[in-house]
């Protein structure tokens, strides 16, 4: 009685596809994040260099990581939703 999900989630035909896309996007983001840590520890003076709008690399990179996370999230949702809709449409066709 206590081991089923809190709400039934139904069949998830797109789950493998979403997992693949998610892992790839995560790796891409992790590379950008790791580069940030590496620059801070290996070449910290680089972080003080001006980049754009009078802001240095530290501030630009920091804002960039936050904005990149938001954009990547929106893109990921769009890709997943498109695939889910496609598979749902295929299932409907099969039923017909």
């Amino acid at each position, binding site marked *: 009685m*206590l081991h089923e999900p809190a709400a039934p989630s139904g069949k998830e035909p797109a*789950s493998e596809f979403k997992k693949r896309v998610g*892992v790839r996007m995560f790796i891409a983001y992790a590379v950008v994040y790791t580069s940030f840590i590496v620059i801070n*520890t290996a070449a910290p003076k680089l972080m003080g260099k001006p980049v754009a709008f*009078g802001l240095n690399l530290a501030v630009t990179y920091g804002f960039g990581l936050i904005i990149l996370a*938001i954009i990547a999230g929106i893109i990921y949702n769009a890709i997943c939703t498109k695939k889910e809709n496609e598979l749902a449409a295929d299932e409907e066709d099969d039923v017909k």
Partner: protein
Amino acid sequence: MIYNASLMPIILFLAIVASVLIISILSARKTSSAKAYFAAGGSIPWSINGIAFAGDYLSAASFLGICGMIAFSGYDGFLYSIGYLAGWVMALFVVAEPMKKLGKYTFTDALDSKFNSPGIQLMAGISTLMVSIFYLIPQMVGAGALVTPLLGLPHYVGVIMVGSIVIFIVATAGMKSTTYVQFIKGALLIVFSTVLVVMLVNRGFNKDVSEDYHDFVELTAIADGDEVTGISESGYEISGRYSDGKGSFLRLTNNGYDNWWKVSDDGKLTEALSIVDSENGVKLYNGAPIEEQRFYPVGHMDKIVVNGEEVEATGPLTPFSYLSTIESSTVIRFVKHGFDFEGEHVSIWFQEPTAGSEILRPGLKFKVDKDSTPISKLNFVSLMIALFFGTSALPHVLIRYYTVSSPKDARKSTILAIIAIGFFYILTLFIGLGAMTSGVLDVESSNMAAPLLAKSFGKVLFSIISAIAFATVLGTVSGLIVAASGAVAHDLVDKYFKVKLTDRRKVVIGKLSAVGVGLIAILLGIMFKGMNVSFLVGWAFSIAASANFPAIIMLLFWKKTTAKGIASSVAVGMISAIALILLSPSMFERYGLSASQAIMPLDNPGIISIPLSFLTLVIVSLLTQKKVNTEKADN
């Protein structure tokens, strides 16, 4: 610092508390089943859940702690914002949907979904409890810090007050009321933080921060060689002197008050703030009892440079020019130092002119450049790793996947949370730097930077921001206590000890657990008074990342993972992280010892405990493979 309570903050505070209690009482009527209590019946719309996620996550650590750390240490505080947000990428891309599919009420359900293992139930239940408690400490410390300026009450009263209100909320209504409290609070926090930043940028910078700001005096020393023998200005007498690696300090007597000054290289003496603890228990603030109010708020611009020219004030700025002006200007920070002198302990905050270019890059707190050592760099890397991997392993974040109806909704609410949280974290840099330069900082409590900045815009904004900050603590503490009570009632009592419980009985156990965890949180909140709340949350992230994260990832991505591997990894990650924290320099200072005596040189254990947990899982899983294969063959 002395805070005088006024009527408006009290009214707004009471209004917030009353609204929260009404929501709880109304929700309580619909909360009789375990599903309703622990997971709000899986019925929360994704949009509400997304903002509630933000409400959960933007805790006292984010609003009070990060803003405070930026106000005292510049960009290094902003590193927490970057790390906290980056962790959500992991949560969205890798964890959200699978965790939703696998679990029921708690993250232990998900870990245990393939195994039905008592080992996993026990270790994951305990880990949830431990992470929740470590996360509760900073929330309670934040609550104590808030009530002092808001209501003029001592720290411990604030902690007890928050603890009691939250125990009431959780013990009456559970996850549904917690979700709606978090939704309202998350939305209010983002809206009013935006208002604060708009007003701040529009005000720009001014060397003359306010009419009330203390005029910090500079004196000229009369020196004989290296030794200061007198003061050029009349009325000052040297009554003590102290030197160490941090510099030379003089105690001067003026108008009957003793105060400490820093001697600079050019023969000038700059006024400092000091607290002297004498052996007989008397505490003097700038040479006087606290009631005399000689202990001032601090933080101002030394030089404001716009387009290469020094100016007195900038007038309204844009967000970009706000940051670039700081970059080219100089700020007076007040840096803490402590020493023993004539049987008394002296805490001193001396003026440190700091170039904006240093403030807006790492280095003031985390030594990665000037004065850095391999250990200090490792400490920085360790923190950034824990923040990145900790988010997706926090129990109160994980349980929010179970309050929506489908994996798709879990994903959508996570994305909405990332947008809301990311936007807020960008604001923290402005709020922190604004507090640093607006003459509002209380050197005794970095946690009060954001509300005190709001106070510089008038009592109305201060009241609103403080009330929201208080609601922030209430909401996050509620979520954490629901997670902890779920661990006790569902993971330990029901599943591990296999006590036969009816649905209603399980809710009762959950509520009793909420009371117990709430009482522990109150006690720890009083004990850890004065520590920066974001720093404390860093520890909770380290424990979560070490205990839970390797188990979640390997369960999802490594087919050879076994139940024993998961249970051992959770145990090793949790125990090693907690042990390393207890042996860290910050804890040694807490024990009244020197930080240099600490057995563990790092303040952040993640870089050791996370790989250790992964390694344990792999080794134990490989060692227990044969048994699994045999079991499969038998089946």
